[in-house]
């Protein structure tokens, strides 16, 4: 290959990358940099110029008890939704991967929550949860239990939001597990049947390890979703009662658009980005090495 050909190939490669690079720069890198910069300044009061304050905004944020409450809520939310929805997704996938009548229908039924827009789903659930007239309390009443104020009682409100999220997420993750299960060669099952392996140990020794890449993928997605929740809070609780269901991204929204405090919103965003970066690093360094790829 001549020198000019080599240069041409390089240019060709660069041009191929250009569209993605421009999009990423415009919609990911520039806003990120702008956010970091914003978090270091304090806007002037009544027309006064903006002032560089270093890490002061972070000190203010870490002194804000609401922020810690919201962060704790978000942690509980992640712990509440991720393991359960992944386990449910796996169980549902194993179920609909087997031979059963009306398999297509069952698969579709499991997947339905996923295709509903979040706002629509939240509106439906708001009426499920409504005291007196809601579905759940009507059922409880029929069974002779007293009714619960699902979204209005701070001790159960976050749990109610978590249950709805699990319902919404599990069907989505099921699709990935189903695809992965169908990619497992049937010979493995045949061979283990010949050896007389129990179904239980076949699952733990063969199926589950082979599903590890999918689990990892789903785990990352679930984690991102847990930080990304904002839409159903608008409908269900607006973060209340008394911040019992307020989560990080909703708190960012509140600061930016209800309180007009762009600086604080930027500061919280940077903190979220840092935490996610740490998690991503852990994923690439620790979990990836322990995962079996085919």
């Amino acid at each position, binding site marked *: 290959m001549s020198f000019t050909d080599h240069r041409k190939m390089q240019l060709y490669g660069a041009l191929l990358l250009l569209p993605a690079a421009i999009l990423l720069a415009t919609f990911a890198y520039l806003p990120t940099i702008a956010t970091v910069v914003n978090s270091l300044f304090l806007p002037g*009061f*009544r*027309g006064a110029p903006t002032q560089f304050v270093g890490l002061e905004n972070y000190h203010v944020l870490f002194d804000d008890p609401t922020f810690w409450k919201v962060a704790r809520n978000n942690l509980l939310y992640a712990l509440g939704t991720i393991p359960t929805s992944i386990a449910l997704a796996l169980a549902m996938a194993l179920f609909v991967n087997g031979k059963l009548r009306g398999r297509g229908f069952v698969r579709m039924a499991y997947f339905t929550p996923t295709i509903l827009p979040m706002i629509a789903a939240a509106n439906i659930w*708001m*009426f499920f949860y*409504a*005291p*007196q*007239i*809601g579905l759940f309390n009507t059922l409880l009443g029929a069974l002779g239990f007293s009714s619960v*104020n699902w*979204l*209005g*009682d*701070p001790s159960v409100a976050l749990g109610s939001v978590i249950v709805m999220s699990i319902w919404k997420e599990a069907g989505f993750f099921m699709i990935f597990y189903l695809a992965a299960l169908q990619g497992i060669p049937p010979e493995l099952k045949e061979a283990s049947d010949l050896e007389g392996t129990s179904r239980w140990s076949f699952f733990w020794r063969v199926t589950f390890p082979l599903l590890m890449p999918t689990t990892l993928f789903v785990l990352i997605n679930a984690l991102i979703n847990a930080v990304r929740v904002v839409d159903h809070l608008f*409908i269900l*609780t*607006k973060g*209340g*009662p*008394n*911040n019992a269901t307020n989560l990080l991204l909703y708190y960012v929204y*509140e600061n930016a*658009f*209800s*309180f*007009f*405090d762009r600086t604080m919103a930027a500061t919280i965003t940077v903190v979220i980005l840092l935490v996610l970066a740490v998690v991503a690093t852990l994923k690439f360094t620790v979990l990836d090495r322990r995962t079996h790829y085919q």
Partner: protein
Amino acid sequence: MRLRIPFAMTTLAAGLLSAAHVNANSVDLTMYYPVSVGGALTDVVDNLVAEFESEHPDINVEAIYAGNYDDTRVRAMSAIEAGDTPQLSVLFSIDLYELIEQNAIVAFDDLVETDEEREWLNSFYPGLMENGQLDGKTYGIPFQRSTIVLFWNKDAFEAAGLDPETPPENWQEMADMATTVREASNGEQWGVMVPSTGYPYWMFQAFAFQNGHRLMSDDGTEVYFNDPAAIEALEYWVSLSTEHEAMPSGTIEWGTLRQNFLEQSTAMMWHTTGNLTAVRSDATFDFGVAMLPMSTQRGSPTGGGNFYIFEDTSEEEQRAAMTFIRWMTAPERAAAWSIETGYMGVSPAAYETDALQRYVEEFPPAAVARDQLEHGTAELSTYQGGRIRRALDNAVQAALTGQLSPEEALNQAQQEADSVLRRYAR
């Protein structure tokens, strides 16, 4: 999208019309507006705009529906930041301080020129003007405005042995009647529900004002949340569920409350008059609408949206925007708007129109919000309003859910508000 089509067509028609006239001086206006109750209000607005344009061929108005009050504020503020300032918008009446702080709006006093225009500026109910004025100047013109009213189920009252035509006059009566209904129904039906999500501060303000207490200063730099009268008001609200056991414990959802009332799971509810037309069309029982009960005085805060004209627009555009606002708030239009929505007619003259007079005669509840205006107070509005309202929302919810006593909760909210407002109290 469905709603956008007739609008697109009217814009197109208006465009063709003005093109036919070839008017060199035509002015283009952009306006954002919110809708926060159900119904096809966008159609109503579109029709009004089309009618205005045919009467004023030299002014084109692009009316953009932008969601609820918060969404509309975000849309308008982002447009301003992007250098594409709308000439006018309908925004929350309590957005005043934020808009002033961002130097975003102009005072109508600086725009009016003739005596006729000055007269128009003085034609509205003073109670509705309160949230739009600061330092003696008017920045917001009332448009879709409301108060909180008491809806009661006459059938439930009758079943409980109460007089179906007599709503509670005061706090004691409301608690007693609510308890009576609750006991008569063997716990099947609640006596009263006051929503405590969405806008808890608004409801609390009503309680406090009925107890003779105003929560904020006129200039928006101070709040008085932990005054004994305010604490007493919150104690009464909490007692409806704890002591009288006539209201469910925990918070009560703003969005599903109307349905609760329609399904008769509560005999009384406090809600915005903006729900009136919807309750009227869906109720399967006889209901009434009354002013809120009193403690030492009657009272309800006003609510809803005002017209604002933005800075950074040419004088010609501001004049055109004012022409449009004057047309939209003229008595006949205000009357039509009130009938179609349940919102209030914004001026006394609106209630003197034939249309609204006939409507009120046929359906007397339509006048309750207006009559209550005499006992109205401005909605909670201060600098850093979002944060202040949130602090009060949290306090109300903490008290209603039993996390804090009313006194502790309001002390905490006061402390939070004081530290936020410190730099404004000069």
